[in-house]
């Protein structure tokens, strides 16, 4: 992490975790009365997104630690739950929706972890299978160098039987996680993309090879795996490039240990476009053929994304037929066209993923 300035919300300043993080970062923290002080500083920067990636605020999560993924009604959502450990990311992907999602975008790490653990206890005490991930509002593994939160969570989840934790990342900070007694209740997941997208659109992320090697090492230590082809970027030759990534994936890890693979094409709120134009002037990703989707997000023209989906789905079904492949936020037409069925025919997408989790992770309701 290349944090240059560390702020601590004075309401959590006395927590031992704050001083430990400051020591690991080698920074003298500045105390602030409220997060708003830091928000104003970030907002006033010429590039608030870049400023937000260099400035870390240790604070309290005043809202819910466990909350539903913000899906929309028209497209099929998987009913994923998010464990809200922090916000934003030190990596810098051109397509990252977090650039316009937070106002302003800012690295926040929630140090009131006792409350987070209590929130998890509440979830664990409820009946029913659940899938919870830490990689929605941030990257799951970027915090490990300042606080091994994944390690703590892996232990926590290993001690129960009905909820899985998905750690989702584009980095490979996994050495300290390999020997843990995870009890198969943690799925190690990576976002994958083509070599050209990784090289051109994902600043500061681990290489595709590194991600695949990390996945292989995790698999060797018994971790269930998952992969997310999201966002799929459409460009000339992208289909063969994505098939090549799938090929490398299935040659690097044993498909029988993959819980799920998700596919989702690039989609974004319209206000992300000027940010990408300004911050990534060489990037062409926003000049694809986008239309405004039913959720107000810009999406590739449907026939274009269905064409790509169909080829990738066919490849996965042929080379890893037992793997649960699914779409993140697509409608029945896309499902029918690419997979030959709709989620409703399989009991719904949440049920499909729950079954995959039960099978691979030994969950019990």
């Amino acid at each position, binding site marked *: 992490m290349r944090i240059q300035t560390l702020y601590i919300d004075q309401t959590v300043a006395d927590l031992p975790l704050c001083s430990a993080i400051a020591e690991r970062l080698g920074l003298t923290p500045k105390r602030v009365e409220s997060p708003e002080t830091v928000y104003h500083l970030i907002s006033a920067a010429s590039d608030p997104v870049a400023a937000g990636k260099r400035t870390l605020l240790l604070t309290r999560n005043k809202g819910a630690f466990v909350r539903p993924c913000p899906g929309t009604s028209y497209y099929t959502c998987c009913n994923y739950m998010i464990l809200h450990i922090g916000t934003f990311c030190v990596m810098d992907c051109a397509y990252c929706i977090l650039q316009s999602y937070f106002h302003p975008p800012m690295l926040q790490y929630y140090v009131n972890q006792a409350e987070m653990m209590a929130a998890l206890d509440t979830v664990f005490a409820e009946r029913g299978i659940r899938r919870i991930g830490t990689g929605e509002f941030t990257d799951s593994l970027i915090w490990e160098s300042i606080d091994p939160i994944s390690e703590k969570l892996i232990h926590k989840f290993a001690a129960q039987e009905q909820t899985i934790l998905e750690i989702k990342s584009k980095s490979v900070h996994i050495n300290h996680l390999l020997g843990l007694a995870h009890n198969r209740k943690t799925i190690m997941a990576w976002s994958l993309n083509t070599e050209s997208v990784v090289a051109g659109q994902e600043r500061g992320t681990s290489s595709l090879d590194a991600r695949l090697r990390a996945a292989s090492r995790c698999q060797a230590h018994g971790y269930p795996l998952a992969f997310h082809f999201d966002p799929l970027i459409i460009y000339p030759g992208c289909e063969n490039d994505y098939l090549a990534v799938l090929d490398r994936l299935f040659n690097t890890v044993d498909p029988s240990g993959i819980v799920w693979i998700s596919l989702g094409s690039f989609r974004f709120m319209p206000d992300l476009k000027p940010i990408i134009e300004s911050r990534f002037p060489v990037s062409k990703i926003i000049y694809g*053929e986008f*239309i405004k989707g039913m959720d107000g997000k810009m*999406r590739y*023209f*449907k*026939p274009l994304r*269905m064409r790509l989906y169909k080829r990738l789905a066919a490849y996965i079904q042929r080379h890893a037929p037992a793997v649960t492949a699914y779409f993140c936020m697509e*409608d*029945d037409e896309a499902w029918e066209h690419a997979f030959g069925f709709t989620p409703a025919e399989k009991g719904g997408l949440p049920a499909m993923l729950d079954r995959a989790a039960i099978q691979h992770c030994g969950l019990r309701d």
Partner: protein
Amino acid sequence: MITNTAFIRLAQIDLQDRAFKISTEQSLSGLVTSIAEIGLIHPPFLIHRKASSYSIVSGFRRVQACRDLGWSEIPVRLLPADASPLSVLSLAVADNAQHRELNLLEQARTVEKLASFFPSDIELAAYSGCLGLSFNQELVSRLKRINQLSSPILDCIRRGCLSLTIALELGKLEVKAGEALARLFEEIRPTLNQQKEICSLLRDIACAEDRLISDLLETGEMHAILFNKDYSRQQKLKHVRSFLHKRRYPWMSRFEKAFEENRRALMLPHTIAFKAAPGFEAQEFSICLSFQTVTEFADQIQTLERLPDNPHFDAIINKRFADSDSLY
């Protein structure tokens, strides 16, 4: 501010000093006739600047009209020589703004002249209210940018062909492209939304293809549209928009074309409107009937009942167009 009325010889008025000039109107014909017939109703404001020389504060055209009429002296209202520059400029602006609405260039000129007196846009905006103007901080900032535009774009603004928003958009482009688009808009006269659309499409195409917008405007396709003598202004506008849309969205354009061909082949009467969802994103299609009598309604129902047997209808609903392999 106290002024004195006096008669001043026209030869003593410095017509080159435009420090207080706000108006962009240059034509004198109506004014000359009016003064010749009725006389000079409102004497101009002048200020004594140098020895035996006066500067015009307000009334540049009136002074010029009187000269054109061959007058040797005119009645004026003289400002005190020690009046502060801001108070004199304020009078110049207010005298214009109280008679009529200032056009965009006059507003920009006003902001440019006032800017040196105010450290921030917000203070300038607040002061503008005293002059009968209602600028806000954002407008002040935008008007300042108007002054940096090239002459051809400013000319288009003067002729009323460009809005502030579009003019500033053109100012962000390469100079050659901005000027070419200003000329294009003046020729084919798109609406404001169409101008925005054309700017956006051109910018995206240029970025996607690593080309200059000015090069895109010089392509053979654009020339074939713009120099086609058989096209009316509206036809040129339609073809320019269509060309840019196809270039920016080639797949979507082909899909739309295939849909339209099949829809037309259904031979539906104009009273039955058959539409796809915007962008073909949702699966739904819609049919809207227009009728006045029960007979008309019954006829349309009969037409609709035949649709499922029509292969073009099937092609549309299942999106199986002639080149479906390349589209899906």
